[in-house]
Structures are given as structure tokens and as C-alpha cells.
């Protein structure tokens, strides 16, 4: 773009603006590390609306509850998944399938809160999501772009809660295209004039308000924004740099592009990434929406797994595919399935977790509603926090003075190596 300001321009402008911030040197060596040496990242594939366990990772074909879907064998011995996922069947061996997640929240907003934070909604405080905790507890030097990013059109993108709004995910609604608000549309001289004006304005306002002004972090936020606008690390968002075959493998969808950007962000050292796939709320014609969503999820997820393995990033990257709940075993008169928080599935692995396990079981006859070997979300998150080396039950003092543990659960030891 004609007016795109370069890194050098920004450094020049910043100097002219009297900004004495030094851009930290990029830690190239850290970014290039591979295998378990590398700092860990988390990618959450968020299935918004609540996918059916039966048409994804926990099929029961030929039973009363099974619906039309068939099961296929996978590269994990003994594991069968819905036949809508032929590519994932080839890529699932490093991952684990949990088929017995249980929560008490059957509403989208409450369920999302529960599964993103590990806590039930509480009117007196807002808990941080797993991604925000990782980003807060494990700061990264040398990453100029946000360390906690939500990709895709999410209604409730990952949030910092009581850790503060500065830990909210940086939102990229349409990944793979130009970044929102990241470029100035003005010519260089205009941009320089604007920043110069700001200096004059700040000087006038701050006279007599030094201490209070400093606390607002207003000019720090502007400096960081300028730094980000010119960062070379923004290249992570440019999937045009990938080969056509790679882009094709992820699929021509917002979610597919999001997964590809997610892998590129991991390579830049970004800590937590959430990629959202909407459209799972299949109250009517369940099979149809699951078929069309599988056509998006299957290639993207499989390409991501393949890529992470090929690039030796799987040892350092936890991947979790999960939604706010599952769907009822019964099929309703509209051929849909309704909300079901009692026995639903997620897939997770990588980052040093053990792989190839199947945990829990739902009843194909639906004689009992509770799954065997139930797994609670707080336990799942305690496991991931521990894997990242964070004291999972560490209590932080919330702004209202109430101590709150990062997770109320206990790590699931069989998942940890």
C-alpha cells in the first residue's frame, strides 16, 4: 500500500515524538528453537454453538441414538470417529479423545463461560480464560505483536476477566486478510504532524496531572500500538506468503485461514491463540450442519496437525478442540439435536501431553445419561496449566479482594507424560 509506514518511518516518527522507547531486539534464536526446547504455545479450536459428540469424535452408528453417521477407523488403535472426518482419521494419533466431559451449563453464554474459564459464571467477578492465564503468567520478551489472539468471528472471544482488559485476546475477525486498524491511511507527513500535535496536547494536559496521567497508560498504549503497526512479526498474519498447496490444504474458509495464521503465530512465539468455527447449534437438521461444518473442520484441523508435526512444533504446541457443550442423544422432531452438557467430547494433545488415548465412554443405548469416567473442565485446565509449568491452584487476589485459584481442578495425571 502506498501509505504503508515502514518500521524505519515509525522509529523516525517515534523519535520525533520524543518517544524514548527502544524496540526490544527480536529473539530470533528463541523463535527458531524446535522440539521440546521451545517455549510452549496453546491453540484452542473453539467450536461455537456446541458440536454433537455423536457426529464428531464419539459416534454410535446403528444404535437408537446414533443417527445417520457412520464410524471410521483411525491411526489410533481402537479409536473410531465419525466418517465425516477422513483426514483427521489420518492425523489423530498424537491426540487424545475425551468423550466424557461434564458441566452443568446448558446455555450458550453460560456454557461458553464455563468451558473457556473452568468456572461457572459468577456475578461478582469475571474469571480469565485459560489463554489469558497463560499469557499473563508467562510473559514473552521480543514478541511485538499481541501474545493472546482470537481469530475468527467470535461472539465471546477469549478474555482477561479479573486479570484486566489488557489481557483480553487481540481480535482478528477475518484472519488471512488485512489486519483491522493496523495501518494508518494517512501520508507520512500527516502521520508525523498528528504525533507531533499529540505531544503538544499531552504537554498541556499533563501540567499538574503528571502522576494521574502516567497511571492511565494512555501514551504507553499509543507507543505499543505504533510499535505493533510497524513490527516485522505482522508477517505472521500474511498467509499469502504460504505456498498455494499449503493454503489449499487448510481449506478456503475463514476457519481454515485462521488455523494457518495460528500456526504462523506459533512460529513467531505467540502464547495463546483461539480460532473460532461457528455454526454448530443444530436444533434442526443436525446431520446437514454437521456435514457442512466437518467439511471445514476436517481439512483445517488435519493440515494444522500435519504442519505442526512436519515443522517439529508439536512438542511445544498444545492443541485443544472443544465447544461449550455437546448435543442430545435423542433426535428431535426437526431432526435436530439440542444442548447437552452431560457427556460431550473434546480432542487435545501436543505440547508434551501423552497421545493416543481415549478417555471416558457414553452409553450407546442411552440407558444412563452420565458417561463413565467423567472429566471436569477444571481438571482439564489444571492439566494444561501444569504442563505449562504454572502453579494451577495458585490463588490470585482479585480486584474485589477475594482470592481465586486459577483452576479449582486437579491435573489428570494419565495425560501428563
Amino acid at each position, binding site marked *: 500500500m502506498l501509505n504503508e509506514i515502514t518500521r524505519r518511518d515509525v522509529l523516525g516518527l517515534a523519535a520525533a515524538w520524543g518517544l524514548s522507547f527502544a524496540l526490544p531486539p527480536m529473539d530470533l534464536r528463541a523463535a527458531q528453537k524446535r522440539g521440546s526446547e521451545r517455549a510452549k504455545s496453546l491453540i484452542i479450536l473453539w467450536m461455537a454453538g456446541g458440536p454433537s459428540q455423536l457426529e464428531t469424535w464419539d459416534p454410535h452408528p446403528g444404535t437408537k441414538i446414533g443417527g445417520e453417521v457412520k464410524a471410521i477407523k483411525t491411526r489410533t488403535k481402537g479409536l473410531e470417529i465419525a466418517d465425516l472426518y477422513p483426514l483427521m482419521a489420518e492425523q489423530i494419533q498424537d491426540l487424545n479423545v475425551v468423550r466424557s466431559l461434564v458441566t452443568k*451449563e446448558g446455555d450458550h453464554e453460560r456454557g461458553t463461560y464455563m468451558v473457556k474459564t473452568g468456572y461457572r459464571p459468577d456475578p461478582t467477578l469475571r474469571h480469565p480464560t485459560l489463554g489469558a492465564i497463560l499469557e499473563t503468567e508467562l510473559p514473552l520478551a521480543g514478541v511485538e505483536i499481541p501474545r493472546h489472539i482470537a481469530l475468527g468471528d467470535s461472539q465471546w472471544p477469549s478474555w482477561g476477566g479479573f486479570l484486566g482488559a489488557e489481557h483480553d485476546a487481540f481480535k482478528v475477525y477475518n484472519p488471512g486478510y488485512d489486519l483491522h486498524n493496523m495501518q494508518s491511511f494517512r501520508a507520512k507527513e500527516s502521520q508525523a504532524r498528528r504525533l507531533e*500535535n499529540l505531544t503538544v496536547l499531552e504537554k498541556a494536559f499533563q501540567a499538574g496531572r503528571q502522576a*494521574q496521567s502516567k497511571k492511565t497508560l494512555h501514551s504507553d498504549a499509543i507507543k505499543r500500538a505504533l510499535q505493533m503497526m510497524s513490527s516485522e512479526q505482522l508477517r505472521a498474519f500474511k498467509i499469502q506468503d504460504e505456498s498455494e498447496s499449503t493454503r489449499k490444504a487448510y481449506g478456503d474458509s475463514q476457519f481454515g485461514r485462521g488455523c494457518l495464521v495460528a500456526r504462523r503465530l506459533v512460529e513467531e512465539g505467540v502464547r495463546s491463540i483461539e480460532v473460532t468455527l461457528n455454526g454448530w*447449534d443444530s436444533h434442526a437438521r443436525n446431520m446437514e450442519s454437521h456435514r457442512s461444518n466437518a467439511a471445514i473442520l476436517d481439512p483445517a484441523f488435519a493440515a494444522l496437525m500435519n504442519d505442526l508435526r512436519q515443522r517439529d512444533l508439536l512438542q511445544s504446541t498444545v492443541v485443544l478442540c472443544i465447544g461449550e457443550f455437546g448435543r442430545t442423544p435423542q433426535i428431535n422432531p426437526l431432526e435436530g439435536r439440542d444442548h447437552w452438557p452431560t457427556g460431550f467430547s473434546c480432542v487435545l494433545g501436543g505440547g508434551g501431553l501423552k497421545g493416543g488415548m481415549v478417555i471416558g465412554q457414553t452409553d450407546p443405548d442411552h440407558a444412563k445419561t452420565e458417561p463413565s469416567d467423567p472429566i471436569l473442565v477444571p481438571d482439564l485446565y489444571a492439566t494444561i496449566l501444569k504442563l505449562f509449568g504454572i502453579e494451577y491452584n495458585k490463588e490470585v487476589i482479585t480486584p474485589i479482594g477475594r482470592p481465586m485459584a486459577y483452576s479449582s481442578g486437579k491435573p489428570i495425571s494419565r495425560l501428563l507424560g
Partner: protein
Amino acid sequence: MPKRIRWLPIAVALGVVVLVVGATRTAPRQSNRTPDLEVVPALPETVAQVDKFFETTWAEQKIQPAERAPELQVYRRLSLALLGTIPSLEELRQFEADQQPQRLERWTQRILNDSRFGYYFSERLARSLVGTEGGEFLIFRRDRFTNWLRENLQLRTPYDQLVRHMIADTGLWTSVPATNFISSAFANDDLDENKLAGRSVRAFLGQRIDCAQCHDHPFDHWKQSEFQGLAAYFGQVNKSAVGIQDFSNVDYKVENRKTKVQETIAPAVPFHPEWLPKTGSRREQLAVWITHPDNRRFERATANRIWGLMFGKGYFDPVDGLSDPPDKTDLLDILGADFRQHNYDLRRLIQVIAASKPYRLDSIHPSEDENQVEELKAQWAVFPLIRLRPEQIIGSILQASTLGTIDQNSHLLFRAIRFFRENDFVKEYGDLGENELTEQPGTIPQALLRMNSKLIGDLTEANLVNSPGRISGLSPNDATCIETAYLVALTRRPTAPELAHFTAQLQAASKNERSKVVEDMFWSLCNSLEFSWNH
């Protein structure tokens, strides 16, 4: 995705229709067009009491308070807190032309009579009453609830009455809007009595007993049994075809966490049971108890909340974390007693706070020591800098981009644009939800949004109708141009160095460049700390 979203386009379309229809029906509001002398209620005694309270504290603590803020600055604060936007140039000209005594008091009154006040303030109040989450589909109608609040703010219905309606009303969430206080607590098709007990105590008594839901409060005196006793007041509520109802034959049962046995819990209040009436449904009894004139907690909680909405942070912080009422009379008792004695009139409470000394102080103070400034803030001896809420920012940017007042009488197009832009902007800027009245720093996405978003680009790019265009086109000289831009965006005139800076820029500019220079000036004004922080 979730079902609510599918309705959004329809809801938005309906919203526009409502805007259009509403605008054609609403009688033109007189107050904005005629120079007026509103009647100011007799406040001096209470305000003097409040001022004396602070002066005594400051003297005891040997604190030198800040100077009085310029009246224009106080007017900006009032407009932001009560209307959600900064004053327009049109309003500023009228304000400055008004040289009668008690100008700020009269203008506070005028703002309270402005129809924008009801719309904005009902939304702010609703957060503490029904939260910000969507609630259960169909049975929770937030819009009905805020409309009901708005109408009653305009009618000056005593607040204690409103609270009794919220707690005790029966009927449908559509036709009896107060019941949405109850229906907001349905989750997964079940009523969450605990949520209602916790919320009632927070919103109406200003205290937090929520932790006592599961165990005795770790650092306060609340017992789990007290919490359960309060929750039992909501234990007979259920929804039916005719809406929220009480079923007097139902027992409220809770599982004992130790023995796993279901136990029947009888309704009980944690203190002063003698305030309970002898008759009425459980909820009616609780409503009378909460709003009992002897219940200092009720008036103190309301005073602290309104103080918070005016200043951006409660007199005591957090706004609903009050201790038990102290033995010695404090500020909340002075404000609370006045509120009670004047029919629990929220608008009067706002006026008293707006006229008090702390609200009129400058945010400038000679002290530069950070700890000392924190202490000054704690004693309200300097006006705090508080980040504006997203809708205040966008409301202000939209208002700054035009010279006339955007209100009920504005051109429909302006209002439709405002409606859409506000909603998108609020989503991107980030809303703090229910826990909003706390100090928050600025964030990077907010900076990026203010600096680079298309919206800001459009609004600061000069055209025939917006402020940058009209100011650069119509000003007779550079000084007027700069001064007008400052008034429009910052509600003040430029300092000498600022004037010199921009005059030099304008003089150096060629005729073609001139509008670019004005656009850049506008951009900088809207991106300054001063613009986006209440001061």
C-alpha cells in the same frame, strides 16, 4: 451461531424502524432550543453538609484540595456522566451566553430534563440490576426493563417503589417489565435463587455476601445460613404461562453439602427482622424489609452507586463492597438521608452530588508525588482521571464531528449512523460489563481503534457538513478555527503554546493543505488523553 444471533439483523432493522417512528412522534424538546431558567430545587443545606464533611476531613488530614475546576469542564463531566456524550458547540454557546446565577445547578437540572438522560442513565443503572449478559432467551427482556426504568426516571418515581416492584412483581416479562429483575436469574430453565439473593444484597444493600453461598464468609461476618435464608425469599418463584409467579405451597430446599440430604430452608433476614411486614408473599416481605426507611444500607448503597456513576468510581470502592454502616455519620449517610427525606428521588441525589465540592474540583493538583496523589484521590481532594466507557467515547467522537447537538431532534440520518456506529464500536472497544466502576488503564486495541479505524478516518476527514469541514471552511481567521476545534472536541480553549503550535501549522500550509492540517488537528484532539479520560 447461538440462536440469539440470528435475530440480530431483524432486531437491528426493527431498531431503525423504532427510531424513525419514535422520532416522528416525539414532540420537539423545548429546553435545548430556548434559553431557559430551569427551576432549581433547594439544595443548599444538604450540599453545605456534604462540603463541610469534606472540608473537615481535609483539614484533619492536612490536605490541600485542588482548585475549583473551570465551569466548562464541570459541564463536560455532567454531560458525559448523564447523557453519555460531550456538549455540542451549540450547547456550549448557550451555556456561555447564560450569565445568570447558579448556572451549573440550572444546567444540571436541564440535563436531567433532557430526554437523552433517561435513555442513557437507565442503561447505566440496569447493569447493577440485571447485569449485562443476555440471560435466557425469550423470558428475559432487557429492553423492556430499561424502557421501564427510563420512563420512571422521567416520572421521578420514588426509587424505593421501583425496587419493591423489581423484587416482588408478578406477571409477564413483557407486560410487567419489572419482573425481568427476576427472570434475568433463570439459567438452564431453572431459577437461580442464589443469584437473586446475591444480586439483591449487592444492588440494594451495597454489600457482597455471595461467597456465603458455599461457606461462611472468610473475612466478613456473613454466615452461609444467612445467605440461604435470603435465597429462600425467592424459593417460591417460578415461571408459568402468565409469567413470574409465587407458589405458596412450595418449600425451598437445599442440599446439605456434608450430609447430602435435602433440607428445607425457611426465609430469614440476617438482621432487624422487626422490619418485616406480617403479610404478603415472601418476595413482598423481602421488598418491604430491604426498602424499610430505617434500613441505612439501602440509602447508603444507592448513594454510593450514584456517586460511582457520576465520578466513574464509587465513594467506597468496590461500589458494592460496603462495610456495615458505621457508628459515626459519614458521607453516604448525609447523601442517603437527603435521598430518603426527598422521596427517594434519584434525580435530586444526582443534583446534590453534582453541586458538591468534590465534583467541582479540578483534576489538576500541584503535588506530583504519586503516593500523595493517590491519597488525594482517596480523600476526593482532586478529581480522578477515569477512562471513559466505550459508548461515551464514540458518543463524544460523533458529537465532536458535528457542530449541532445530536439528540431527539437531530436529523434521522445522524441518529441512524450513531446507532450503528455505537454498537460496532462498543463491541470492538471492549465493554467491562457489570464490574465497570473501577479504574482501568488504556489498552493497545483501543489505541489502534482510535488511531486507525475507518470510522475515525471518516469522521475527521473534512466534508461539507462535519466539524472539520465547517470549521476550516467558515472560520474568519486561524485563531477562531483553532479555538472552535478545541471547544468542539475538548470543551475548552487552547493554551497559548497550543494556539501558537497550530497557528504556525496553519500559516505554513498552502491553501490546498489547509483542510488536511485541520483534519490532523481533529484527529489529534480525539486521540489525546484528555479526550478519552474523564477529568
